[in-house]
């Protein structure tokens, strides 16, 4: 028996027609953008475009109609995501809300919370961010120190700091992991709770941008200084934040965004290659095509397992680890083999996309579970831990 299960998925009938519909939509509505902005495009926020996707029914498309969803299948959503990413569409603004915050609210939220947030998310008008990382809590999430203290009137007072919060400046809602009971050395995962925090209207919250090394501003630090939230901001069960949080993370590891971030650069290399391309370039094009094809089969297979109600945690970790290695490998491979006359400061599409990806790709194996954490999960699957 194989150690990991990767049965190929048979796409249901109707997928080609749906894919066509998405491509026509993109042709009509996607803003003109440079190849460099098409790379890692789920890190590019365009609020107007997110609203257009919402109007089209392309956000929360699997959710119940009562909350503005489309009740479509998870495979259809997968097809939508891979088409958006392959086209390089700027989907960063609503990505987190659609991928994990919305599904988490559907799973753990009260009826009021669901009604309050989900319809606005599906319209592409309400954006979410993840409040997990802190200065002292990266891979070791259980060490979060942001504290929540319940007041006599039932409201909660929050104090602490979140870090590396992507697009907090655009977001309306943060799902934050907060310590609500002092740490128990024998069970560090206990005593954590999640909160739905209105970033736009809660006093005591300060959002400060952190510039990344390319000069981009998606990172932020978010401070809570005696920030008071209502009792209904508590999300799910008090004290079960850890379990809720990890089930949220497993939703986000196997999607097409885990291997397509450097596709735009591959396409530029392909565009530049003619029928007289050197063997080294031809081989690189064939080799990357093989890896993209393989990862797509793996990623689709995990999507199929999720639809069937299986638990592909291990397989999802495999997809992310291998997908990140590909996304990170492409810029270095391209730099190795392109013409020695190409310089990173050139203005050509190829040079600009290469320069950007060399600098942004180190983040690919940090976000959503580091390489080391993933490999630890895989080793556990092998029975070594």
């Amino acid at each position, binding site marked *: 028996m194989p150690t990991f299960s990767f049965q190929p998925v048979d796409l249901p009938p109707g997928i080609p027609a749906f894919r066509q519909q998405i491509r026509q939509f993109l042709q009509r509505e996607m803003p003109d953008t440079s190849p460099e902005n098409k790379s890692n495009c789920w890190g590019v926020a365009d609020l107007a475009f997110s609203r257009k996707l919402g109007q089209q029914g392309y956000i929360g498309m699997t959710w119940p109609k009562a909350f503005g969803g489309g009740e479509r299948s998870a495979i259809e959503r997968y097809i939508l995501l891979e088409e958006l990413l392959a086209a390089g569409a700027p989907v960063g603004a609503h990505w987190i809300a659609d991928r994990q915050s919305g599904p988490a609210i559907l799973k753990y939220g009260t009826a009021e919370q669901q009604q309050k947030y989900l319809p606005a998310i599906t319209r592409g008008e309400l954006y979410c961010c993840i409040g997990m990382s802190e200065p002292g809590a990266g891979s070791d999430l259980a060490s979060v120190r942001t504290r929540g203290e319940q007041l006599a009137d039932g409201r909660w007072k929050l104090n602490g700091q979140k870090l590396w919060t992507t697009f907090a400046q655009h977001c309306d809602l943060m799902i934050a992991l907060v310590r609500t009971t002092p740490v128990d050395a024998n069970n560090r995962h206990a005593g954590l709770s999640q909160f739905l925090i209105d970033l736009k209207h809660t006093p005591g919250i300060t959002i400060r941008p952190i510039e990344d090394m390319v000069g981009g501003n998606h990172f932020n630090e978010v401070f809570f200084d005696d920030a008071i939230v209502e009792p209904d901001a508590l999300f799910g069960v008090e004290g079960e934040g850890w379990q809720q949080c990890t089930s949220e993370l497993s939703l986000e590891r196997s999607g097409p965004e885990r291997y397509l971030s450097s596709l735009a650069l591959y396409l530029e290399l392909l565009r530049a290659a003619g029928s007289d391309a050197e063997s080294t370039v031809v081989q*690189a*094009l064939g080799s990357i095509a093989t890896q993209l094809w393989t990862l797509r089969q*793996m990623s689709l297979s995990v999507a199929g397992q999720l639809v069937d109600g299986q638990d592909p945690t291990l397989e999802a970790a495999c997809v992310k680890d*291998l997908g990140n290695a590909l996304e990170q490998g492409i810029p270095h491979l391209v730099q190795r083999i392109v013409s020695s006359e190409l310089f990173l400061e050139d203005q050509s599409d190829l040079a600009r996309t290469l320069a950007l990806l060399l600098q942004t790709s180190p983040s690919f194996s940090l976000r959503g579970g580091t390489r080391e954490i993933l490999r630890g999960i895989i080793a556990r699957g*092998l029975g070594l831990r």
Partner: protein
Amino acid sequence: MLAETVSRLFAEVESDQLQPTIDEMGLAGLMLSEGQGGAGCGWEELFEVLEPAGQYAAAVPLGENILASQLLGKAGNFSLSPYVEGSLQEGKFSGEVRNIPWGRAVDTVVAQAATGDVFSLDTSAAHCRENHNLADEPRDTLIFDRQAIGPLESADLLQYCALMRSVQMAGALEGALQLTAAYTLERHQFGRAIGKFQAVQQQLAVFAVEVAAVSCAVRAACRAATRGDAAFQIGAAKLRANTAVEIASRTAHQVHGAIGFTREHQLRQFTQRLWSWRTEYGNDRYWSEFLGRRVIERGAEHFWSDLTARDDRVAG
């Protein structure tokens, strides 16, 4: 079901009794139609049978038997090879058919000339130059002199063989992984099982991901081959299997230490096969150029739509 039956066969039957048992069970007829007395199976079932053959390092030409039987329209212990040098004149072949798995032991071999013609050759009058690969599997050259051929329907033997070998590679990679993972829990150093060290765990995880990727790619290629033109998928599956060999063999041997380097140890049954198989039926350079030229010919505008269309065609 099929996979369990053959796994038991490879686990329990003595190696010198394996081929007679396979003949007796009629496994060679797996891909013959029911009208031809076969099981009417496709490539996905071939995966179920050949993946265990790789995982148990079975020293039999089972894949060759099955594919040559399908091409010949009858079941038997036959072999095949796409490596032909010689000439076809008036229905007679003179020249060499090279690298035939178990060429010495089969009475018929299916070959493909440079012209693309596929034909069968009776081996009884051929001169055999015996050779073997790193894992001692026979890789013989048969030399023919004006041997009458049996013309067969056209097929791409290199692709057939590449997919067949890829399936075995998926199995051998899995076999090497399981052997290595088990060893890390048996072997103690510094007072604990070496598998408890993070440095070893992280290496094993990388190895496991490679194995998973190959298994997925080869399964997908088998599915595609059952349904029609699968040149891209077969090339990609073989290339993916080839590239995994390096990480897999390096890690397996590193973790096993000196014991894995001995003639007696089981590990070489996998690694020697994998090193040989990486070269057989297209090495990395061959398939990456084949695939690279295809994507260049189609252009950047078609890359993504071609990639998705391959699976969408099935959805219809």
